[in-house]
């Protein structure tokens, strides 16, 4: 068999492992988004005690490497029989929430204070104002920095194999790598190409996701609604 054929044979199982990576990725983003948004609003509009809690949460989860948080969560939740994908999503999601909270807070604060004033002056309650005026604007402002977090989080999913038995993209590739490298006569020459192909998978995930986000940004675009400093066309 030729080298490309061999490589392809070893790449096909990667597609089988892809759903695991995608599932964890999708779930962790949902967890991170929901929790991150809640933290952001709580920290912006909440009372002192709530604010301190949010700051504490952020500092805790931002200080722990993804590998460690996965191991710790698995250690705790394993005895409860929690499904592995859920554990991975929860661990990485709660960590991502700490970063996403900062993104959303920045976006909320980027909304000019006059917007809230105008809303309140009409008689809207704070919650109404947040929902109808602040949130729609903050959401749009949050999309560019959020796509950074997305890209970062895609890479984090490569660690989920520390949860025993979870076969994601990277784990599957590692399982294929040793026998591939021992194929006669050119096994060792296939190591690098194979790893590059693995990298391409992650690149596709990152690029694809960012592309979708750019699409979303375009759909939601409001004439003239941009961050200050953008060039007028």
């Amino acid at each position, binding site marked *: 068999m030729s080298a490309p054929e061999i490589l392809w044979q070893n790449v096909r199982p990667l597609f089988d492992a892809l759903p695991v990576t995608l599932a964890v990725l999708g779930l962790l983003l949902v967890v991170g988004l929901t929790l991150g948004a809640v933290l952001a609003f709580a920290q912006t509009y909440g009372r002192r005690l709530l604010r301190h809690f949010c700051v504490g949460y952020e500092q805790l989860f931002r200080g722990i490497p993804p590998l460690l948080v996965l191991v710790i969560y*698995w250690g705790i939740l*394993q005895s409860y029989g929690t499904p592995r994908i859920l554990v991975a999503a929860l661990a990485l999601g709660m960590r991502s929430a700490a970063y996403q909270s900062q993104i959303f807070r920045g976006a909320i604060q980027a909304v000019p204070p006059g917007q809230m004033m105008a809303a309140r002056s009409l008689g809207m309650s704070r919650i109404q104002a947040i929902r109808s005026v602040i949130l729609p604007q903050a959401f749009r402002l949050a999309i560019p920095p959020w796509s950074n977090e997305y890209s970062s989080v895609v890479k984090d999913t490569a660690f989920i194999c520390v949860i025993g038995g979870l076969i994601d993209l990277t784990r599957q590739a590692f399982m294929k790598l040793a026998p591939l490298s021992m*194929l006669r006569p050119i096994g060792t020459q296939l190591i690098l190409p194979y790893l590059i192909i693995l990298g391409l998978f992650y690149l596709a995930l990152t690029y694809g996701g960012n592309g979708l986000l750019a699409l979303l940004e375009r759909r939601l675009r409001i004439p003239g609604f941009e961050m200050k400093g953008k060039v007028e066309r």
Partner: protein
Amino acid sequence: MKKSLLVLGCLLAVVGLCMVSAAAATYKVASDTTWPPFEWQAGDGQLVGFDLDVMRLIAIIEDYNIEIVSYSWDSIFIDVGNGSVDIGASGATITAEREAVVDFSAPYWTSNQAVIVMADSGLNIASALSAGMKIGAQIGTTGATWVQEQLIDKGVDVKLVDFTLYPLAVLDLVNGNVDAVVQDEPASRASVAADARLSIVGVIETGEQFGFFVTNGDPNGLLPKINDGLQQLKASTAWADLITAYMGGAALPKIEAAWAAASSYLAAKDVVGFAHALAAGATAP
């Protein structure tokens, strides 16, 4: 009359179910299937390897079921340690530190470390491990430990380069970033057979021994069974056949094909038949 019959029937069914499930005890075996020829994933997705087949055959001999799952190396010890996995079978060297966390079976394999260099480098085992050399090894393996304890700690000025995966060490050797790679002998032989540019310049007799392991205190009472099964296996022809098949230098795809052909013997619980067919298929010209 009818009512008591119904109750009796239910009771019997329950007892029957218990007996059935007792007879079909299934234990979870975790293995880091990235390490030929002891454990790896075949092209068709089947988990094969020396360790795994020994586990399978022992299970047949001792009449219990096993489910083999692929875990990353670190998580095997964690999960066997806390009991969520019953048996670890992953080319694990028996060490005192590990004994504190898990219980090992009797040793089933004695391993040595091989030293791989580029064939045209002109290095021999002495020069490959001398001062100024860069030696690659997979992180956490006994090969890496040997280099650290027997060379660096004893004052030999070599640099130990860690790799997450053994094939990456080989890649660096080929690219000239390290001068030698230290790795278990069977895997080393397989690598060298796959690339004419590599050669083994020597074998370090570390005398390390592999063992299967279970949770501390052996809650399932598995160690006596494993040790007994191992003894019986070693006494039969199957043991030599397994070694021929996996350690005889056959190309991995050949072993995989032989395994697929021989797997019917496993289903038929024919220990000797399986090993014989495997060896025959692996060594056929």
